[in-house]
């Protein structure tokens, strides 16, 4: 695979790397025929990011399936894993990159053992980074965006303006929606010392959103730190951000999409069984992750079908294209082999988590952050550990991706 990123797009690409860096120390580098996907998931499986650059994003994109004998198992084309820390220096000072770099080429060569990032800078300077990678199993999150009853779409500038009111140390925030108002507020745990903590709350009207659909009143709490990366990225890309979510406990997805790229950041949300004060609904019980579709087919789904449901408060500006859900339904499939992950939230790792780990999820209620998505379907069609079903159809292709081996890093 070889691709070339032009100077103008470098900033966007660099910001994508930085955004993904906030999720984890390593990321999946997955070139496919249609483009390049970068993915990452954090160690506690509570945050997942995927950025897909279509081949049109690049000045030049060339991907060929190379079949290589693989001395390991007979696996199909595999993405590889890179350490973020090795890649970040390539895209350090993103704002400066544009000025100094004419283009960046990324190439993988089956006979070599690394991925090469080459920056062609001004004055004939060429910086070459050869980065080793780890072969790994593919990663993909399973999340049915189109089944979310609540969808907001807003320009990234607005979200950035909202988040600026929270201190950079703020870990988690709560998004609370009703059909008539939207509120972001700082989240505090039950044992917080309120006499020392400053709390911030921002109230917005639904009119500020380009698209606003609230099927169910909800209050979801998610990690702000992980989100900030996406906000910076979407500002660089100048693409509006869509937010799909449901009740507390279910994941929240922040995504951006345009002709050249798509990105999704899916974050787990906190669910506390006791937490019910603001919501008129009964205490948010965590939805048990059934192995069948029914787990997701709750009554909320009906509110998703078209915009005609009377319960749904929807407002959108006339120039918006159709119903938000439909833009995703073509791509997403619900893969329902959920799997309880290890939850690693400090101080909250409940026994429930450990029980639910591995294999089919049981009815064990999750008290803390849900991990969402990791349906486990391997290419061998078995539910095993770290292998996952593809969402993006291109990844289903059978071609082999050249077996690249590791080598020295220069």
């Amino acid at each position, binding site marked *: 695979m070889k691709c070339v990123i032009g100077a103008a797009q470098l900033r966007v690409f660099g910001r994508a790397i930085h955004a993904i860096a906030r999720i984890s120390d390593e990321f999946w580098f997955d070139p496919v025929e249609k483009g390049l996907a970068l993915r990452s998931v954090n160690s506690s499986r509570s945050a997942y990011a995927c950025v897909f650059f279509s081949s049109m994003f690049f000045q030049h994109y060339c991907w060929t399936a190379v079949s290589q004998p693989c001395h390991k198992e007979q696996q199909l084309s595999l993405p590889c894993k890179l350490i973020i820390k090795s890649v970040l220096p390539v895209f350090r000072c993103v704002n400066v990159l544009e000025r100094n770099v004419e283009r960046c080429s990324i190439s993988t060569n089956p006979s070599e053992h690394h991925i090469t990032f080459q920056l062609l800078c001004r004055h004939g300077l060429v910086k070459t980074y050869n980065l080793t990678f780890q072969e790994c199993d593919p990663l993909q999150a399973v999340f049915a965006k189109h089944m979310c009853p609540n969808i907001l779409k807003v320009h990234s500038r*607005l979200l950035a303006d909202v988040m*600026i*009111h929270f*201190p950079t140390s703020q870990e988690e925030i709560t998004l609370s929606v009703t059909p008539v108002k939207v509120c972001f507020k700082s989240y505090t745990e039950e044992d917080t010392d*309120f*006499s*020392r*903590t*400053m*709390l*911030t*709350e*921002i*109230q*917005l*009207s639904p*009119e*500020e959103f380009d698209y606003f659909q609230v099927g169910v009143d909800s209050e979801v709490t998610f990690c702000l730190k992980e989100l900030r990366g996406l906000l910076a990225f979407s500002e660089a890309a100048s693409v509006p951000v869509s937010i799909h979510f449901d009740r507390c406990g279910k994941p929240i997805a922040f995504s951006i999409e345009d002709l050249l790229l798509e990105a999704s950041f899916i974050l787990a949300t906190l669910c506390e069984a006791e937490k019910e004060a603001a919501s008129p609904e009964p205490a948010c019980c965590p939805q048990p992750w059934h192995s069948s579709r029914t787990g997701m087919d709750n009554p909320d789904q009906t509110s998703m079908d078209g915009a005609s449901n009377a319960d749904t408060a929807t407002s959108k500006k006339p120039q918006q294209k159709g119903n938000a859900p439909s833009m995703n339904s073509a791509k997403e499939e619900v893969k329902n082999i959920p799997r309880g992950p290890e939850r690693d939230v400090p101080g909250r790792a409940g026994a429930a988590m450990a029980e639910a780990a591995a294999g089919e999820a049981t009815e064990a209620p999750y008290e803390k952050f849900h991990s969402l998505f990791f349906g486990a379907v391997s290419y061998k069609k078995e539910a095993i550990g770290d292998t996952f079903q593809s969402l993006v159809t291109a990844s289903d292709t059978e071609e082999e991706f050249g077996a690249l081996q590791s080598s020295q890093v220069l």
Partner: protein
Amino acid sequence: MRFRAKIVDLACLNHFSRIINTIAKLAKTCILRLTVCKLYFILSDKVANGGASMWCELSQGNFFDEFQMEGVAAEHNEIYLELVPENLSRALKTAQNAKAVKIKLTNKHCPCLSVAVELPSLSSSSRIVTHDIPVGVIPRRMWNDFREPSVPDFDVSIYLPALKTMKSVVDRMKNLSNFIVIEANLSGEMNLKIETDLVSITTHFKDLGNPPWASEDDCQSNTQARDLESMAEACIDIKKLQQLLAGQQVNPTKALCNIVRKRIVHFILLHEEVSLQYFIPAIA
């Protein structure tokens, strides 16, 4: 006990924010005293503060469009709150182009100053950002701890040089020493000195002018008899001086300091309707 206030004018809001920023640089925690006409930010000279104390006074009418307060009791119509000024500074930081800012004393999880900033938005209804700043209510029996400090019986009173110049000098000196000596005389001369094992540096300022104090004291009137050239000096913690200078974002109308030889340096900064007094004790 109730308190509600509102600022609508952007210039007033920015000025108020600047004052809060200055206070935040000087004190981690301070007392906010509210009376019908004025606000006071007070830092008392406890050991925890390194002995430095502060008294900042502003007239509410110059900032607030609405200001209502009810003290603890009719005959003690004041409110004393302990707060972290940095929180207030942060709450006001993002209110640069606010339509209005309302401050209210509330009791949610604990006593709070709720700062509600109304921001313009693209839609017809404004965006409202609310910050709840936790405060501690100081009971009346402790109010005596926070009385206005009196002007000390100083040896020399002198106007300060341009604060920007003073700040850049002190900033560089801070890298070399923990203590700085301020000395001045009644002929308008001031020196800032540091001394270490390796080096000693003195910066001289001239023609600063000495403010005339209406002297009712016998001691003060003796200044005429005193030698105009003799320097009164005090050695103080350089960090405290640096904090004071760093917090000044706008040039004050009047800036002067009173030096009590080897005891204390008393800075007075006047800016239109705001007065700030800062006391730095001398190191023995």
